[in-house]
């Protein structure tokens, strides 16, 4: 009997992703079983409202079941001497209240992260790796990556906030493509950059002229050019631009993306550039980080046998 015969399709998918990341030059990162609660509490905004299961250690210290793997990686890498960008992948369980049922669940995550001093090419590599991850998982179904840029979102929101609208309301409506809601805010009209940004959706080649025009009005030409460049990489025809992507604005600092597969009702992968989180951990300011996680438990197509 072969190994494959006893593996579930979810396990095969996880191993295929690990193989993909290892052959792309990423090395395995294994988390400590438990971490101090403070690691997560100090970076709560990064976890955007995730609840954490805590318990006491032997000496009364407060420990936590990890709700996320990126934080332990950022913490562990900080202690290392880096001569070049470090590329890590992981396959771990995380414990969090899952979005829709709002119950605590153990979820299986596979993901990849790059931390170090790097240029746009590294972002492109990570985006390609995300695209190839979708290829591993899609099983003949249509798959695509929706990309966004936090720099553009921030400048658009600042532009609208300067005209009197509330920043939090702007961010919420933009993430829900809620144009009627935006139009009710003070100073926001049909042709406001934030309204045009909310309405924008499609392949880079289709929407780039409109995006360039919006960005010219808010001083975000460089960000638009960066996004255009990123969309030219591997799998470019499966990349779409969508500014409802981009939660946790505080830590994300540039590219953000979500991956979708036809038939799955939620994003199955998400990631982005999170230089802001490195600042929290005292990394030198030339350091950047980019990565993504695959949510294996959200892929119902893997449950079928």
């Amino acid at each position, binding site marked *: 009997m072969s190994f494959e015969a006893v593996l579930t399709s979810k396990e095969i998918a996880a191993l295929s992703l690990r193989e993909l990341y290892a052959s792309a030059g990423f090395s395995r990162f294994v988390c400590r079983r438990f971490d101090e609660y403070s690691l997560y509490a100090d970076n709560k905004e990064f976890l955007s409202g995730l609840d954490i299961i805590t318990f006491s250690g032997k000496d009364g210290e407060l420990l936590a079941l990890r709700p996320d793997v990126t934080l332990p990686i950022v913490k562990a890498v900080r202690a290392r001497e880096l001569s070049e960008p470090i590329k890590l992948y992981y396959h771990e369980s995380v414990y969090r209240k899952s*979005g*829709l049922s709002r119950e605590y669940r153990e979820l299986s995550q596979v993901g990849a992260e790059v931390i170090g001093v790097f240029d746009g090419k590294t972002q492109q590599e990570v985006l390609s790796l995300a695209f190839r991850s979708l290829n591993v998982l899609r099983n003949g179904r*249509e798959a*695509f990556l*929706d990309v966004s840029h936090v720099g553009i979102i921030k400048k658009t929101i600042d532009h609208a906030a300067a005209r009197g609208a509330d920043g939090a309301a702007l961010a919420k*409506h933009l993430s*829900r*493509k*809620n*144009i*009627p*809601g935006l139009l009710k805010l003070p100073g926001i009209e049909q042709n406001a950059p934030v309204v045009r940004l909310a309405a924008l*959706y*499609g392949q880079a080649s289709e929407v780039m002229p409109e995006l360039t025009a919006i960005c010219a009005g808010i001083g975000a030409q460089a960000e638009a050019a960066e996004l255009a460049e990123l969309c030219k990489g591997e799998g470019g025809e499966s990349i*779409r631009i*969508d500014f*409802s992507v981009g939660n946790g604005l505080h830590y994300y600092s540039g590219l953000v993306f979500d991956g*979708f597969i*036809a038939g*799955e*009702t*939620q*994003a199955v992968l998400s990631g982005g550039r999170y230089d802001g989180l490195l600042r929290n951990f005292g990394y030198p300011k030339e350091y950047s980080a980019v990565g993504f996680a695959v949510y294996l438990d959200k892929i119902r197509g893997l449950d079928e046998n």
Partner: protein
Amino acid sequence: MSEQIINIALQKGRLGEEVYAIFERAGYGCPEILSDTRKLIFDAPEAGVRYFWVKPTDSAVYVERGAADIGVSGLDILLDGKPDVYELLDLNVGVCRLAVAGFAGFDMNTARELRVATKFPQAAKDYFAGIGQEIDIIKLNGSIELAPLLGLADVIVDIVESGKTLAENGLVVLRDISDISARLIANKAGFKLKYRRIEELAEKIRRVTDGEKG
């Protein structure tokens, strides 16, 4: 891709029928839907849509979980359940408001905890948290106006249409929380997958509702 059918969750009842009429005028008619039948699912393949009737409070659930690509939901449900969906259009039907009501002259600025009866506990919590007032939520499922009359609650948070029910029970609106109307909502992944068809539908619906406003 013309083979993509859009699944639409409509609310059972008067509001759902009003909303269906808008869809019909926008070119997404399905004559069978108004016939006297117990069927819950109605296909209109030539219009590229499938309708189903759901309980009003459930339509956001169908959409959030992707059983429906789009649906119609009252803003009260969206404020209370906070489903993770896109809000594409304000259909301008089912217009009313969410408000705090109580006896005329009741002073809400008390130092003590305010007892609030409502069908919409989350929306009520959010509102009072926003103004920094401590409250005790009493979740009721109907006849909310009864709560202050019997001393069960100090105030209520409820949907107010004409204010007639309030007036007949000796209550008045003390504060407005939000204007309410039916919204066209979309599942995030479903929108992305069928975006050309859904954008086309939303645009046609918007033309119908805008025409009616003017």
